[in-house]
């Protein structure tokens, strides 16, 4: 399996009035055409890792890395123009909440067409056809009608599927999904995950799946990275989750109330200061 993305010692820090906040502190991993999960709590740096790869880190933040390499392109030194061309066409990102991340004053169809026409030279009518085909691929019934709807006129699950369509239309090789289903209903979550799973497999994309839900990630990905306080504390194959060694990973697994178990009170994480070292 060839390596598509190579991250070595990635650091992201934010200078603030009260000192520098180190959000990501030395994260290293490589990714081929596989599904990689990144798990952690809020503030563990998982989203900032994804954003740094995508090139969406705010401009006042400082990024450094020994290597940050996507298919032979050094992302740290690449000029903005190169990164702009990569973004959306070869690396795409699905965000958490379709309510906030879709443009509210633009129809869903126009947003998808915009992505396509930014990266490829296609006629308007062809773009429209391809956008509708893409909406059908994410299992939206009556795609031609949905094409002309605005984001507020569709449900959360539909909005998220529209976002998946928008991100996949330019045929990216790497997809970063940042909590793609956390804002959705449980019943809809599975549908959206199923669609995502199918498309990723069909198109042979690499996937980075960022989530706080360890069980979900392990059922969806091949490999899981667990982050705590900006560092990777454990990396393991999804099937090996039961043998997790780090107390933080074990704590995350244990603290969820599970149907059919009777544990009162629930075990809580006993955070050790040395985890954050």
């Amino acid at each position, binding site marked *: 399996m060839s390596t598509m993305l190579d991250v070595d010692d990635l650091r992201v820090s934010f200078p603030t009035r009260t000192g520098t906040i180190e959000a990501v502190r030395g994260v290293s991993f490589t990714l081929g055409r596989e599904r990689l999960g990144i798990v952690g709590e809020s503030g563990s740096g998982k989203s900032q890792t994804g954003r740094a790869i995508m090139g969406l880190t705010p401009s006042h933040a400082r990024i450094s890395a020994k290597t940050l390499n996507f298919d032979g392109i050094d992302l740290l030194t690449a000029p903005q123009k190169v990164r702009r061309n990569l973004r959306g066409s070869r690396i795409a990102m699905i965000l958490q909440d379709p309510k906030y991340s879709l443009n509210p004053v633009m129809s869903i169809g126009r947003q998808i067409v915009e992505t396509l026409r930014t990266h490829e030279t296609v006629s308007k009518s062809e773009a429209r056809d391809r956008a509708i085909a893409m909406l059908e691929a994410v299992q939206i019934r009556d795609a031609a009608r949905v094409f002309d709807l605005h984001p507020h006129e569709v449900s959360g699950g539909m909005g998220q599927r529209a976002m998946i369509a928008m991100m996949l239309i330019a045929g990216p090789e790497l997809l970063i999904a940042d909590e793609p289903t956390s804002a959705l209903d449980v019943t809809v979550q599975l549908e959206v995950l199923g669609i995502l799973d199918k498309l990723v497999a069909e198109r042979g994309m690499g996937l980075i799946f960022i989530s706080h839900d360890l069980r979900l990630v392990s059922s969806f990905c091949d490999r899981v990275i667990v982050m705590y306080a900006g560092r990777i504390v454990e990396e393991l194959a999804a099937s090996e989750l039961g043998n997790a060694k780090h107390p933080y990973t074990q704590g995350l697994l244990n603290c969820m109330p599970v*149907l059919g178990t009777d544990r009162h009170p629930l075990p809580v994480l006993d955070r050790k200061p040395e985890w954050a070292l």
Partner: protein
Amino acid sequence: MTAGVSVENLTVAYDDFLALDDVSIEVAAGESYGLVGESGSGKSTLLRAIAGLSPVAGGRILLDGKPLDIRHRDKAFYRKVQMVFQDPYGSLHPRQTVDRLLQEPLAIHGIADSERRILRALDEVGLGSSFRFRYSHQLSGGQRQRIAIARALIIEPQVMLLDEPTSALDASVQAEVLNLLEQVRRDRKLTYIMVSHDLGVVTHMCERLAVMKNGKVVERLSSADLVEGRLREDYTKNLMVASKGFVRAEA
């Protein structure tokens, strides 16, 4: 000292749309009762209708067996029934300190001795007095939800309405808040009505639950029934499947 709540044939209408359609549930004093269903099923509306935040078009609400004057709830009602909302980022006043936030319900109900009560409330939710003069933006999500719980508890209610109290929180923080809620219920013998979309959370917290869909209760069952899969409705079975997590379809 606790109170039971029963809801009889409650209807909530927004123009032509029936958000709650003839819903009845009965919650015994000291019981913890769950409401599950997907968004738009009316589970939050039912909770808000009990709290007086949704326009009730018909039906009765009984608190401790006494019918409630739905149009004119008195202070005594709010003294008995308190609510905790889903989003701890939206439910605390951004320009008030924790002290001011906890002062408010005491002032409304004319309760003296605020100093001692505030310190005790903070202590009870595991935060300590050092949090007293902070603003909510200086707190984490879990700490904010603890403040929201303290604000509800400070006037010593008998019934707590919990609208997805942990769904905005991390899994590890969720466990802490659920443990806190259980502890408080045990200590004060409270009645809980809890809304959640997570069947794991509901069966952990509640003895009985109602499954809602399109503004109606489609199934009432005990947590033990749910765990053992004694379900009648397909809708409940779907929710069960969904709660088990993602399973890759075999090609």
